[in-house]
Structures are given as C-alpha cells and as structure tokens.
C-alpha cells in the first residue's frame, strides 16, 4: 500500500493558510521593521556613506536585509508551528496520520520557506520603492536572476530546516526567542549585511568567513548586484549540502519521535 501526495498537500495547505489568514501578523512586522531600516540606514545614514564597491549604500544594503527577513521568518515559522503544535498537542493530528515522516518534514519546510520568500520579496519591494523615491540613487537591478532564484530558495529552505530542529528541541516559548534573537540575529548582523568583507581588517575578514551567513548574504547580493566577496558557486554548493544535511536530520528526528512522542 502506498500513500500519495494528497496527505502532504493537505498539511502544506494547512501550514500556509495558518500564516496567510493572519496576514497582518505575518507581513506587518517585516514591513515596518524594514521601512525603518531603509529609512535610517539607507536614507539618513546612507546619504553620508560613500559608495561600497561602486554601489549606493542603500542598494548594497538591500540584499542583506532581504536575507535577514527570509531567514528570520523561515526559522520562526517552522519552529513556532511545530512547537505550538507540541505545546497544545494538536500536532498529534499529524503524527497519528499515515503521512510519512519525510512528508511531514517537507510540508513544514516548504510552507516556512515560502513564508521566507514572500517576506524577502516584500523587503525587496520596499527597498526598490525607496530607491525610486530618491531620484539620486540608481534603481535596484537583478544582475544574476538565476543565482538570485537559487539563493532565494536555498536560504529560506535551510533555515526552515533549522526551524524544524528548533521547534523540536524547544521546551518553552522562551527557547524560541533565544534561538532567534541571540543566535540567528547576531550571526546575520555580522554576516556582512551592513558592510562589505573587503572593509574588514584581515583577521576579522578571516573570522567572518566562518560565519555561514556571510555566504548567504553574499550569494543573494551577487544575484541582485552581480558583486560578491566569495565565489557564489562555492557558496551555493556549500549551502545546498548543508540544507540536505539539515533536512536529513529533520527527518531522522521525526522518525525517532524526538520531542514528539513518549
């Protein structure tokens, strides 16, 4: 007996509906936050900052903010959905169904990654709007659309995968906050969102290369601007391998019932 994709689609639909029906909760926070980022860093401070690698600061900043938004939302969505389901035990509806463990993981990851992509598009649109309003700034272009699409998919997928792990490990809502605020956000902020690695002194540049966020920001920046500090092909391969590894761990955790079963 085999079970087709109907069940996985049903869970995927449920997961996507959960955040789309609460669109204000889903999209208002990144909207407001990024309007502030672009206003303060892009316009007010950015006007006093020289171009970086030949790009206006607000244009250089945009890919980093897109990554920041994608990562945060993908991670938050997956971790919250799983943890909230565990907390209120309604994840039992899924666990007692004939869905395979990989189908369960796929539904949570794809729904969360989609949320990351939607938020990323929203942030990019905000950035473009800021450049259009300011006639002195060059319009944002997409120099490498295929790379942008590839990084734009792999980055939220990877962090949805991490979110699944977070949702299974967390024993309290505070743990989710800790993961997002004290681990993800610092890594992204020191991941060359606001600056180019070229501006760092040698040792700091080398240390930054240990931060996986650097490759994500750099890859997305390459997609938008055609400029990167690191070879984007290397970044893509490394991130793809990491994503596969994380998804494998997700499925194994589900299979073992980690955080899910007695």
């Amino acid at each position, binding site marked *: *007996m085999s*079970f*087709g994709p*109907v*069940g996985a*689609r*049903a*869970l995927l*639909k*449920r997961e996507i*509906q*959960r955040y789309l*029906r609460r669109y204000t909760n889903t999209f208002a926070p990144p909207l407001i936050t990024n309007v502030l980022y672009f206003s303060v860093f892009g316009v007010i401070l950015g006007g006093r900052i020289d171009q970086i690698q030949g790009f206006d600061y607000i244009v250089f900043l945009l890919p980093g903010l897109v990554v920041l938004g994608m990562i945060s939302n993908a991670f938050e969505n997956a971790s919250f959905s799983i943890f909230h*389901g565990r907390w*209120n*035990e*309604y994840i*039992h*509806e*899924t*666990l*007692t*169904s*004939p*869905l*395979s463990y990989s189908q369960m993981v796929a539904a949570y990851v794809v729904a969360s990654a989609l949320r990351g992509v939607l938020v990323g598009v929203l942030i990019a649109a905000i950035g473009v709007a800021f450049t259009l309003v300011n006639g002195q700034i060059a319009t944002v272009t997409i120099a490498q659309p295929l790379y942008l699409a590839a990084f734009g998919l792999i980055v939220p997928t990877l962090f949805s995968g991490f979110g699944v792990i977070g949702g299974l490990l967390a024993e309290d809502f505070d743990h989710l906050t800790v993961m997002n605020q004290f681990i993800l956000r610092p890594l992204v902020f020191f991941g060359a969102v606001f600056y180019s690695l070229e501006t760092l002194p040698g040792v700091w540049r080398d240390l930054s290369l240990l931060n996986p966020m650097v490759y994500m920001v750099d890859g997305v920046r390459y997609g938008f601007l055609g400029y990167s500090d690191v070879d984007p092909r290397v970044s893509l391969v490394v991130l793809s391998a990491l994503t596969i590894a994380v998804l494998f761990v997700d499925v194994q955790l589900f299979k073992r*019932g980690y955080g899910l*079963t*007695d």
Partner: protein
Amino acid sequence: MPPAIETEGLVKEYGELRALDELSLRVEEGEFFGLLGPNGAGKTTFINILVGLARESGGEARVFGHDVVDDYQEARDAIGLAPQEFNVDRFFPIVEVLEHKAGYHGVPPEEATRRAEEALKRVGIHHKRDERFDWLSGGMKRRFLLARALVTDPDLLILDEPTAGVDVQLRHDIWEVIQDLNREGTTILLTTHYIEEAERLCDRVAILNEGTKLDVSTPEELMGRGTDTIYVRVREDGEAQTAEPERVAATTTGTGSERVADADGEPVTDADASASVPAGDRLTAIDGVESATVEDGRLAVRARNGGSTAPEVLNALEAEGYEIADLEISRTSLEEIFVEMTNRERSDRE
C-alpha cells in the same frame, strides 16, 4: 483477516517505571472491546503505542496485521482516535480541522469536505461548523473529538474515555453513535472508568492493572465469576414469616444476627447447631453455593452465577417444606469484580 489489534509481549518503560509489562492482547475485527483498569494501569500508553504517540520499549504491536513501527502508515491509516485530552488545532474552524485531518489520510479535498460535514452532523454539532474549538462547550468538545475520529472512516475506532465528565444525555448520544458504527462493522476499542459503559457496550473486556493483563472475558463471564446473593423469604404452615434461622441456615456465627454455613456444609462456629438444620446442608451442597446466612430476617445464599443457582435453592427449600414468599437475586456488579481483581492482584504482589 488478521485481528484488528494484536500485541505480543508489549513493554513500555519510562525510566524505572514499567507502564506496560509484557502485554499480549488480541482484539478481533468487528469486536467492541473494552479496556478497564484504574488510573496508571497502562490503558492510554497502550493506545498511544498503537497510534504512534509512544514508542514501545519491547514486544510487538500490529493493527490489522500492520506492524505499528515498520508499517506505521498502514496501521495509522486504519485508526480513528478520540483521545482523553483536547488536542485540537485551535487556528481553524472545526469544519476545516476535520477537512485537514481527512486530507492527511489521503482523502481528496471535495470528499474531505463532504465527510467533515457528515461527521459534524452525526455527532450533532454541525451548526457550530464555523466555530473554533476553544469556543465550544465541554460536551461539544467531546462530540468534536468523536467527529474527528470518524472523519477518516476508520476500520478501528479507539475511544479513550470518551464519556469522561459528560452529562447523561451526551453519554447516551455517544453510546448510540459508536454502537451504530460497531454494527456497521467498525472495530471499537474503548477505555473507560464507567463499568456500566463496559457492561452495556462491550463484547469483551480486558482488565489491566499496573501494565499487566489480569483477564480478558465477556462482561457476562466476568460477572459469573463474582458471587451473587440470592435472598429468599419463606412462608411456613401457610403463614408468611421469616425463615427460622436454625431451620434454614446451617450454623451460626455466634453473633445472633447472622448465621453461616460454608460450602462444605461444615459449621463455621457452632458444630452442634448444624446437625439440626437440614436445609442448610441441602443448600450448601448445591454446586456453586458458597454459604447460606440469615440477614435481616431473610435467607441469603451466596452463590456463583445466582441466576442459574436460584431454582435449585428454591427446590431445596420446597423439599424441606418451605413455601417461597419472596425471591430476590442481587447480582455482583462488574465494578465489584473489577475492584476485587485489582485488589487481589495487588495483594498477591505484596
């Protein structure tokens, strides 16, 4: 067809605690099967292993021949579960929760919607279809859990204390629904604290205690193992009167209010008195009779399976010249047998 549920040497340990201890059980397809046991007996653990919410520490469990670990998809697809706890998705209206649940079981969207509507109608809360679970009353929540278990059209319906804390009307409504389902061929596994529920609904019951199976039997067989009491008021010389203790009971206990002979007809306390009481000897000689006493002016004969023993008791009395004025049989309740069995098991362990 393989049995609906089959477990062999099922073990579940939580650290030092052994929640299930080598539990082997078999529930046939189409049966209405009850799991009885005090709190902590392992009933919910047993269910959780079947549906995938707990991992067994040892042994095997199969649902319609599908191993719950190796063939978990097939096993879970066959089961509809109404748990004790309210573990329902709070984000969506209840009709959509049902659609989702059906969808997870591979039911296409249109069919899932039809089934969701039907399930809500069946349990009588269709008018609440657009409400969220949190807004339902306690009774409606119980009804909803049943609807969710039904929406996947399961071959095995597992109900973990479905009528706990509900009013009489709802209890009867739930009984009616699950009896209909059972008549339609659905196998039912029911856990309950209400012994009356098991007596009334179940074909067979298993009694669990501290993770072990004490017995599996029909409610009638179990009750047959208990000691019923046959109360008889006799009339002598055409005039209603209390049976003379010395003439009816085999011997006395010495209390004056209760006189007893044991099943061997041997006096318990007063050997001389028994010799002059032929009816006592006759009564205690009947197969199944354990003792005869006088309580509150009535003859009280304790016997296994009182219903079939009573005619013999009456015959014995009439043979001794007594006219029967009144007869009452007090059957042992399943509850008493249940308490007796679990207590006996506990004292055996100690």
